[in-house]
């Protein structure tokens, strides 16, 4: 089947142009056509949350979004979280604190947590639970995930404090 859908959009901060079969979901376009396998799938029915990505800054399930609906939009996957050769504070905290066991749901938790922190810099434990409730993890029991999100908040605060102090100097 010759591809005949074609979109241009922003993926992880870079312009991307891709042609694909029109039935494909954003999940499939990312994994199969853009060589970004970091985004995972656990059901392809919108039930497990493992395929979450950020679409224009909002966490969405990429298995429920058609690729053709992403023209001109902005997508962030786990591959786009690190910048300037440095891991995002969420990534460091997840790795350090045991929030990733098998690691299969981790990309989804990371981007969903990023969406939360972009909106609320200091979420409560309950807000964290609420925000992450659409992603299932079978390994961790979630507790180390909550702790990692809270640790990332603290790291971000101290990084900001340091850069504030520098700019005041």
């Amino acid at each position, binding site marked *: 089947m010759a591809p005949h859908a074609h979109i241009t959009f922003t993926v992880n901060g870079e312009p991307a142009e891709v042609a694909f079969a029109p039935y494909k979901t954003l999940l499939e376009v990312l994994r199969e056509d853009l060589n970004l396998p970091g985004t995972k799938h656990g059901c392809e029915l919108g039930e497990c949350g493992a395929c979450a990505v950020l679409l224009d800054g909002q966490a969405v399930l990429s298995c429920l979004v058609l690729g053709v609906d992403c023209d001109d939009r902005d997508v962030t996957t786990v591959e786009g979280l690190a910048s300037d050769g440095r891991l995002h504070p969420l990534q460091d905290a997840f790795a350090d604190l045991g929030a990733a066991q098998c690691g299969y749901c981790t990309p989804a938790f990371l981007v969903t947590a990023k969406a939360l922190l972009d909106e609320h810099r200091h979420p409560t434990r309950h807000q964290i639970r609420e925000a992450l409730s659409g992603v299932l993890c079978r*390994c961790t029991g979630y507790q180390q995930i909550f702790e990692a999100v809270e640790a990332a908040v603290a790291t971000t605060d101290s990084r900001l404090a340091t850069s504030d102090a520098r700019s005041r100097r």
Partner: protein
Amino acid sequence: MKVIGIPRRRVDGRAKVTGQTRFADDVVLPRMLHCKLLRSTVPHARIVRIDASRARAHPGVRLVLTGADFPIPYGILPVSQDEHALAIDRVRFVGDPVAAVIARDELTAFEALDLIAVDYEPLRTFSSPDDSLAHDTPRIHDYGDAGNIHKLVSLRFGDVQAALSAADHVFEDTFFYEGNTHLPIEQHAAVAAKDPDGKLVLWSSTQTPHYVHRALAKALAMPAAHVRVIATPNGGGFGGKSDPFNHEVVVCKAALLLDRPVKICLTREEVFYCHRGRHPVLMRFETGVKRDGTITGMRVQTVLDGGAYGSYGVASTFYTGALQTVTYHIPTYEFRGCRVFTNKPPCGPKRGHGTPQSRFGQEIQLDKIAERLALDPADLRLRIVEQPETLTANYLHVGTIGLAECIRRVTHAAQWSEQFRKLPAGRGVGLACSSYLSGAGLPIYWNDMPHSGVQLKLDRSGGVTAFCGATEIGQGSDDVLVACVAEVLGIDPNDIRAVTGDTDLTPVDLGSYSSRVTLMMGNAAIQAAERARDLLADAVSKKLSVPKDRLVFAERRVFDTEDPAVGVSFSEAVCLAEAMFGTLGTTGSYTPPRSAARFKGGGVGPSPTYSYTAAIVEVDVDQSTGWIHVPRVWIAHDIGRSLNPTLVRGQVEGSVYMALGEALMEEQTFRRLPSKLSHALVHKFPSMLEYKSPTTLDMPEVFTELVENPDPRGPFGAKEVGQGPLLPVMPAVANAIYDAVGVRIDEVPITPEKVLRALDAKAAGKPARVGPTRFPAVPWPAALEVPPPWEGGDGTAIDKVKSEKGKVKSAETEVVRP
């Protein structure tokens, strides 16, 4: 200790948080084709005809395979070689694979499945153990102990009947544990290819590459040396990826025939059909106790609904009766187990393998015993905890036991004595305990070879590569491997590269099951590292003229303990040793100690040592809706020694999570389609939406305590943690509900509906209980009599014929209590 015992980022942590861990479905190869399986739509039938001609003619289809292409059976246990990659002439459950299509893409393969016509001649469907016990024919399999009974076990250790008669109280309780499934977030996936040499390579999300390797060689009739199995990191396993699977055999055959890579990724629905999950178990416990709570004897009977194939089922059956004695002292013990075949997806090993079901019954019954004897449940358990370094009635050698300390820690942390039976109506706390294997003492196929092997390659750069067949399923086995080597050699874990789970590159490790990897691989890794350290020490000793026993390996240096300034860097030490000995490489192996059990069936249960856990669960029960909320769980685990506390805590909390799912909501159940349709027995809800599992909002706060009392049998004293902490949580929930609202729910899942039903019964003056009341008639065979150690037994069964002639004395030896 510089590495062991210190909370640390796992060595594969960065890969996991950057999305770079390469799972099976992330393997993409040039010219790769895609495979889909056609699965049976009927639960039990003869296949009369398969017509795949239209599928073969469909554009884009490269190959269609059917059962005729797979004449050789396979299965995980040597005694249950009852699976074919595709059904030959019979289907045994809805979801049993019948045909495979290999096409240019997944969608084309899917479309072509609809073009395959299969004519079935329906056979009687067996939907429950009652069905299978009542009807011998048609047989689901042409093997097994009788009719549709797969396995019957009957073992007796001492005179249980006399012990029950001598007891002050005899408790008889029946419990039911519903089946549930692993639900790993990663769907099983596999890619097979012919490598450039013409040999077969399989990448697969498997927990047991070694056993898959053996099964492929058998089922494809190939020399094992021409088959390579690479276990990709599993996106969760929990036991569900421990069997050799149909789809693995199919893609291998297809890749060989087509000389092109072939991939399959199962749908979520198919993962429910693969199953191999928790057996539904109906069980009866008869326990005799003295007034002080001492157990005089116990008889346990279990009936397991096995589903359509053998899988690990024979082992699962024994496990329902194996570990009762490891936790508490039980001087006489009898176990009868029965596994039946039914027309449902096959059950197998799920976290805790066969033991959570009977642990549920045992710990609820102890709660009932404590109440009748007016004893605190914690005190009762402290009185009867098994002694360390003993041989149990059923010949399991128990190592260190930290259970009493676990009980003290959780009761202290939860302020048990101020809470138990003292909280307002609707709120309650419950306690339960458990134990689990640190690795099965025997391999799945009998042999005298090591269970785990490690090879080290030492590099002039100062780097070390550790090779081991162990499989990373998220539990952190790569990290354990690296940590053990780093500690011995005094280098940083990140200086070491782990190469694991590859049957071509790595020495055999039997796989990630039975909580065996940390203990077995860890010991092998320490041995290999100590041998390497020895070589380096020889060379450095000569160079520095410092006696070997004064050399210390730490901080990437080898130096004189009396004058730390005198030393060389680790990489210099490697160069010196390479100059002295030539190319450097060492190996280590681990073989468990021989079991004391020498009777038939004694192969299931032995372990080098056992872990222990105690848990207290707090519940809030809404008496108008039956809704159960779990706000807090306290859990203490006897780990021996914690190698990386961050990962250990994750295993404990993850176990609590999975246990709460089993206790409160998860169930793998089935229903009949309406008669006007096919009346087929189908999975009630093969989707993650309907199969409820706990979310972030359901998870309580968990307070974890680690009891560290190093066991000399474990690497640096470590015991297991991956499975044991799951076991006490389900009965602790049930016991907490009784404390909260005074009703006994003697089965899982404990749903609001059942709580309401029990509350209604209580209000009506009927027994305040929901749970099974009857136990089916099972044609138990005569028990194999094995006198316990304190009756002069030597681990062998009494030969009835000989003992009648008075030639064997073991049964007549004077009874000696320990």
